[in-house]
């Protein structure tokens, strides 16, 4: 891939060009030390050097709450989103998260509509002590990235994997360079490397490993980890009626297999009543079920679940005890 150079001044102009066509979602500061993905049309709000955001990018692909259907006097109307989003400044792990969500949700009408209208602009990152994207094979930029900005001294070198992106790079804002790159990936020494293949092989056989009970004792079952996870996509579906009319809506919202009633059926039987079983389910799904279905784990090693666990549970430690160390 041939790189093109863009300086900070021109990047601001490029950003403005994008805001004229898209609603832009970008990393920005929240409070003193935290970062989130949020909507902005101001380049000064955007922070391209950030550790990781609290909010996962899935929020803009599979919103926390979204209307699937409207009901009106006995008619059902499907709701398909029309928004055009540009995700500006994503790290490689989050772009991999989108690539993996694509595998699950490409035939989901709302998801697909959003994705087809979407522009993805990535940016290079500096891994921290919680990152383990290499372990879960999420350190290589997937080919869904339209433009990738790699920091180069004071400027950025831009690459593109898509037709949409190559058109953007034709803009006069980008200068020709002789810099070429074969593959864009993050290289670093992981603090803890996990043998994910070994975990997947053993996880169903190792069902009574003491790590489940031990960790479940500390786990609060709050589902914080699954909320911040860019890949936890499970959802609940609820119908609402508007009190004053005969209209209503079917809404899909985020759910979590860590919550008590997730595997409850009508009549009250709960197939995963114990927190131990629910905690284990997060891992069996991420490192086995998803691998069986799609060939990769549903984890990109972003470290959010580690950073934001109120009980201080480190997924890497659990995986280590499951044979991944």
């Amino acid at each position, binding site marked *: 891939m041939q790189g093109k150079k863009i300086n900070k001044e021109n990047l601001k102009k490029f950003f403005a060009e994008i805001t004229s066509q898209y609603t832009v979602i970008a990393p920005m500061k929240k409070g003193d030390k935290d970062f989130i993905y949020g909507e902005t049309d101001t380049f000064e709000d955007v922070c391209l050097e950030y550790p990781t955001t609290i909010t996962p990018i899935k929020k803009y692909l599979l919103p926390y709450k979204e209307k699937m259907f409207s009901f009106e006097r006995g008619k059902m109307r499907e709701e398909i989103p029309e928004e055009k989003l540009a995700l500006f400044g994503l790290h490689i792990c989050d772009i991999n998260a989108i690539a993996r969500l694509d595998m699950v949700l490409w035939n989901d009408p709302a998801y697909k509509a959003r994705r087809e209208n979407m522009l993805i602009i990535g940016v290079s990152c500096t891994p921290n002590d919680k990152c383990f994207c290499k372990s879960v094979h999420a350190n290589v930029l997937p080919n869904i990235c339209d433009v990738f900005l790699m920091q180069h001294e004071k400027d950025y070198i831009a690459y593109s994997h898509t037709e949409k992106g190559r058109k953007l790079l034709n803009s006069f804002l980008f200068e020709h360079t002789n810099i070429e790159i074969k593959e864009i990936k993050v290289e670093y020494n992981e603090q803890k490397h996990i043998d994910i293949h070994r975990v997947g092989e053993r996880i169903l056989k190792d069902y009574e490993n003491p790590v489940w009970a031990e960790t479940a004792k500390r786990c609060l079952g709050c589902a914080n980890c699954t909320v911040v996870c860019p890949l936890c996509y499970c959802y609940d579906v609820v*119908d609402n009626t508007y009190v004053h009319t005969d209209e209503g809506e*079917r809404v899909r919202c985020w759910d979590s297999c860590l919550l008590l009633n997730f*595997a409850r*059926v*009508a009549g009250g039987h709960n*197939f995963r009543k114990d927190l131990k079983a629910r905690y284990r*389910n997060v891992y069996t799904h991420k490192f086995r079920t998803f691998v069986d279905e799609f060939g990769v784990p549903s984890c990109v090693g972003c470290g959010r679940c580690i950073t934001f666990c109120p009980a201080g549970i480190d997924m890497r430690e659990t995986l280590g005890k499951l044979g991944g160390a």
Partner: protein
Amino acid sequence: MENIYKPWETKIMSIEDMTCDTKVFRLEAKKFSYMPGQFVELTIPGVGEAPISITSAPHEKGYIDLCVRRVGNVTEALHRMKAGDRVWIRGPYGVGFPFESIKGRDIVYVAGGIGMAPLRSSINYVLKHKSEFGKITVLYGARTPGDLLFKNEFERWAKECTFLVSVDTDKNPDGTPCGWTGNVGVVTTLFDKIPYPIKDAIGMVCGPPVMYKFVIKKFRDSGMPDNAIYVSLERHMKCGVGKCQHCQINNKYVCLDGPVFNYAEVKELPEAI
């Protein structure tokens, strides 16, 4: 693109009372083909959507029957509806009973409570194609005589196969006898009454979660191999298409890989049974 979650409108043709909390709803379903053991997602707009197994058999054309117990929001609302009312369905979903691979074999059905709903589809299918199968036995257990479903078919089933019924109790809630003269005891007590060896038969089970391991033990004690046993499992399939994760049992989806599973495939699967 076809919206995978979009149900289509149909109407309730008739409703039949079964027990105090269970009714059979006949829904218009033209050009709708399915196999016994499969389910549909039923929508009542504004109330919700619920997975319901199909209790009619594929040779009954033009409609499907859903046998529904009143236990949740959707089923509660459905029970308040009347013939002519409109509901929405999508499906059929899941994998049903494997009839192609068990041609010529004896079959032993074990149904507990509302577990009769999916099994009835299979039983009536097999009885319709009787020449293609061996001897058929149906063991059916319910809590009380008042909880027995499809009583109007008992006579026919008794004529066409070995049909044995048992109830957990023959007493009314106040302890007085309720006039039941048949077998009393859990469904597994009926195994001793099957008049022929069942070790070469196919077993098919559906019932409350607690029932499976006892029934499977009986099958295995009879000499039946694990891969001759089929179980229909209950979970809350919210999407029906393998996405929402509510019916996931480790690396299996009840909505895609089931609800009917070969026991040999799930016996090592934690949490399945």
